[in-house]
């Protein structure tokens, strides 16, 4: 299995002024690309582990990955998958509020969309070191939840399907925001692609 870098569905400068063009370019062509490259290097030596499997499936069954390469797959496969989602759930036409079944589920779990947003922001800001804040669906209960993960650990590996991902590795914001992570996290809501997230939510319910 050879994994590929998904095409970025917009230009590097499309997320400005919230995320600057240089950050998007380096984040996508260097960081994301390098996780992919490293993952394919691992996959080359262990074809049976990756045979016909989407990366999210490999991460879901992470305990079945040979111990010798497990941490590498967590790091590089996680980095690949997490960034695949990150670019998809952002859009120059994003922002606003969720709609449909998703907003009902959000209200059921957080009472209001504003509460959900506040909690997700607080979670993303609170990550110490490199990692992510997430809105996820539990695979079994179908409940929404907000979680954080460190480094490139994937929610798939703990039975959660990610809907929203906020990358808080410093490389996601440092060129424009430097130490001001809370500002980046607040601004990213202006480019959140709710159509994509709603579609992912409906798929997650069928999982």
């Amino acid at each position, binding site marked *: 299995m050879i994994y590929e870098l998904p095409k970025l569905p917009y230009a590097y400068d499309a997320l400005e002024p919230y995320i600057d063009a240089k950050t998007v370019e380096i984040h996508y062509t260097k960081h994301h690309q390098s996780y992919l490259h490293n993952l394919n290097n691992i996959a080359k030596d262990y074809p049976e582990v990756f045979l016909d499997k989407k990366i999210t499936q490999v991460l879901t069954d992470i305990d079945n990955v040979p111990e010798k390469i497990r941490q590498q797959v967590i790091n590089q496969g996680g980095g690949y998958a997490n960034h695949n989602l990150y670019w998809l759930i952002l859009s120059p036409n994003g922002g606003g509020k969720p709609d449909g079944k998703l907003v009902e589920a959000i209200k059921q779990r957080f009472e209001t969309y504003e509460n959900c947003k506040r909690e997700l922001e607080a979670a993303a800001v609170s990550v110490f070191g*490199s990692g992510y804040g997430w809105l996820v669906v539990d695979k079994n209960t179908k409940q929404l939840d907000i979680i954080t993960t460190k480094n*490139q650990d994937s929610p798939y590996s703990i039975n959660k399907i990610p809907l929203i991902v906020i990358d808080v*590795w410093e490389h996601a914001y440092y060129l424009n925001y430097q130490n001001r992570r809370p500002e980046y996290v607040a601004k990213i809501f202006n480019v959140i692609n709710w159509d994509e997230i709603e579609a992912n939510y409906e798929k997650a319910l069928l999982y």
Partner: protein
Amino acid sequence: MKFELPKLLYDYNALEPSIDALTVEIHYDRHHRGYANKLNEALEKHPEFAEGKTIEAILSDVNSIPEDIRQAVINTGGGYANHNLYWAILSPNGGGLPKGELLAAITKTFGSFPEFKTELTKKANSVFGSGWAFLVVNKNKALEIVASANQNSPLSDGKTPILGIDVWEHAYYLNYQNKRPDYVTAIWNIINWDEVERLYNETV
């Protein structure tokens, strides 16, 4: 007792071109200062605990930190102490080779200075996520190279750091972006060996 931000011993632009002025300014005045402030804030809940203790003493015995502030002190106290060390072991007049007993110890442990340099460079480049690579003196007074995640201090493992390479992205991203190995290569030009030697001699 309040932990204070040590004075930076050189100008923000003094480490150029290895580390650019804006990076030094934000790293020192925002990140380092932020750790110091948050450490003091965390300790306010238990003023008696830190009384009369150095940050090194606190980090050397993390189990004695009151549980409700333990992780906060590991993070912010570690961040405070690690950065105290970082600025001290860098200098615009740095670079070159260590001397004296430190050089003898490096040669004994790693074979040669170039071999040591290669090993510490490799360790710094291999940290996944935010963290540090350190040259430490262990309990047997021997040198060792270790990596740590986030702001964890080697002191908490009974090891005294005498040289620290910060590989949080904030240490290099403005100038080097994803090219961490270039930053790690450049930092050797500004290592303050006099200070590393002083710390070594003080520890052994």
